[in-house]
């Protein structure tokens, strides 16, 4: 069945709501508006306003309320429209959700799922184009997921809700219209990265909105006879270092693609891990393809230039291979 990433997320939400009375969805315009990215369209009619709960513009308040509701026995799915606005709520993620269990000596858990759109590429300019997955991936006590395929959009929510601790799901806004056949095996192991294309000459690591770009680059490289592996990191915290290292040990070369700004990017952590664990397996320095260190500009040609693109990935791989 061919469906969109958006529809896959919606199916996952509907299933979760139907199967567990403790699950509810809360966020700005998730209900009557239908979701700012139309993900939750129709759910209000199906599940009613108590469980598809529109909130005022109060990111700190309703994210914290999600934490409280999780403490109180519910399984909230809290949607923050985009990662940009989640900055307003970070205190509740860092100072409540992630550490209540530890700080209380293990007395409570916070089984909350926090969903948000992320990323650039739609000319939304500097305040609506952040990729701050790396910030979230720095916080102990939470799990961070980035579905990049229709299957993962369908399959990640259930195990995220089953996780007794907070899980943050980043949905790249450019993926919502992605379509694919949803096969039967969409169930997802949210502990493991996924090799999306096996290859031999180099390992390209990507996640979220950069996965399609990495795959496209791999196609182009294949056309010029260079066979690269593409690994979807998928689980950004805790990183699946086994899969990463296993790939590098086979290909001996690594390129990490990340829409975050280069300095302090998630790619930096991946490279550090590779350098720490696979140093002697590397035939060339590990490389990064990240966003330029500039607030994302509105003009299309400038925005394109600021973001990772297949051509940049191709060039990085070729440089690594010295071809």
């Amino acid at each position, binding site marked *: 069945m061919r469906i969109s990433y958006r529809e896959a997320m919606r199916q996952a939400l509907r299933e979760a709501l139907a199967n567990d009375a403790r699950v509810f969805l809360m966020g*700005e*315009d998730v*209900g*009557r*508006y*239908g979701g*700012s990215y*139309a993900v939750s369209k129709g759910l209000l009619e199906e599940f009613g306003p108590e469980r598809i709960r*529109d909130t*005022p*513009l*109060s*990111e*700190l*308040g309703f994210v914290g309320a999600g934490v409280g509701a999780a403490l109180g026995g519910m399984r909230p799915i809290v949607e923050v429209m985009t990662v*940009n*606005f989640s900055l*307003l709520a970070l205190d509740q993620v860092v100072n409540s959700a992630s550490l209540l269990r530890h700080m209380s000596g293990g007395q409570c858990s916070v089984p909350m799922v926090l969903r948000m759109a992320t990323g650039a590429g*739609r*000319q*939304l*300019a*500097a*305040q*609506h184009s952040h990729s701050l997955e790396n910030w979230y991936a720095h916080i102990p006590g939470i799990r961070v997921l980035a579905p990049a395929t229709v299957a993962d959009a369908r399959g990640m929510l259930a195990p995220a809700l089953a996780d007794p601790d907070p899980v943050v799901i980043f949905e790249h806004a450019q993926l919502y219209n992605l379509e694919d056949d949803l096969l039967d095996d969409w169930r997802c192991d949210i502990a493991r990265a996924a090799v999306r294309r096996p290859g031999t000459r180099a390992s390209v690591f990507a996640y979220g909105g950069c996965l399609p770009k990495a795959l496209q680059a791999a196609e182009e490289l294949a056309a010029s006879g260079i066979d690269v592996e593409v690994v979807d990191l998928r689980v950004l915290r805790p990183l699946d270092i086994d899969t990463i290292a296993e790939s590098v040990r086979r290909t001996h070369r690594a390129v990490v693609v990340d829409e975050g700004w280069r300095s302090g990017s998630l790619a930096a952590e991946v490279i550090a891990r590779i350098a720490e664990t696979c140093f002697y397996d590397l035939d060339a320095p590990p490389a990064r393809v990240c966003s*330029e*260190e*500039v*607030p994302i*500009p*509105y*003009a*299309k*040609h*400038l925005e394109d*230039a*600021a973001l990772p693109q297949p051509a940049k990935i191709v060039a990085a791989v070729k440089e690594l291979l010295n071809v």
Partner: protein
Amino acid sequence: MTRARKPAAGALATPPCTSRPADAKPFPLTQPPPKRARKAGRAPGAAEPAERPLELRLLADMLRIRRMEEKCAELYGAGKIRGFLHLYIGEEACATGAMHALAAGDNVVATYREHGHALLRGVAMDAIMAEMFGKAAGCSRGRGGSMHLFDVSRRFYGGNAIVGGGLPLAVGLALADRLQGVCRVTACVFGEGAMAEGAFHESINLAALWQLPVLFCCENNLYAMGTALARSESQTDLCAKAASYRVASFRADGMDVRAVFDTVSRAAQQVREGGGPAFVELQTYRFRAHSMFDPDLYRDKAEIEQWKQRGPIHSFSAQLKAEGSLTEELFLALDAEAEAEVAAAIAFAEQAPWEPVADLLKDVHTPAAADERGAR
């Protein structure tokens, strides 16, 4: 830049605000349309815009916003404008009345729905249109787009797309003026949806506590995206909310440009005279969807139609006609003038060059040249 005068240590009260700010000339109205446009559009014999009576200027400016935005919608459809585009259609009386009520030297901080405010603060329509096209001639050099129009020379500090994000900036601008002994009003414009944000609460409390000259200008169009006011605030009387900070609160019919002008004038006057911050609620309505992505499913068609009956342009022109200060002919001339200005702006934006990609990293930091190390 303005040099700071050292404030008297211990002085906490607002300095008496008798002097006008250095750059407060008699209000120059809005930027006259560029020459070409004026030539092209003006009815023979019509007065120069700056010499018209206030009523006609208010009407003409509402028309300029309306015609500009109607074209923006078309251009969006044509792919010339991209990203988020938030139209102000239906709300023109608010920006028009409010911006005319301010002095040229006042500061304005706006939101993503700010085309009209920028235009009436004197940003050339050419520069606004070029910005929406993403061209280097845009008022933010194509970096900002529709949501981030800037013109610091006119003290127009954006174009902020974080709901409530501009409010603390306004407090800070007003604080800077206080500390420098400058007397000006800083107006911040925001929607009623922003009032649920912590940023609103913290900002209005700071402004009230420190008695800063901030004019909080709330455009209450009843919806924040799809969320109706009553589903956003436990107290829907917004003036009562503001008053709870001991801030003087005013309310006006945001569909009536004269009422807006009068009310904001009074509020601004009070702020200017050192009365501390003030809050104005303008009750209005947007005729279009929230943005170009919004299917607008959350409002009754009938509700929209009812509000359209009260459209600010036709109701005001009807009023002026009834009062005898407007003829249909003059209306058409003003309208044609607006349309000509828009056409010229589009032509300008079309032909304007793109910024070279090589300049991508420009202006992440301030170049050392613009630095003022000397001051230390």
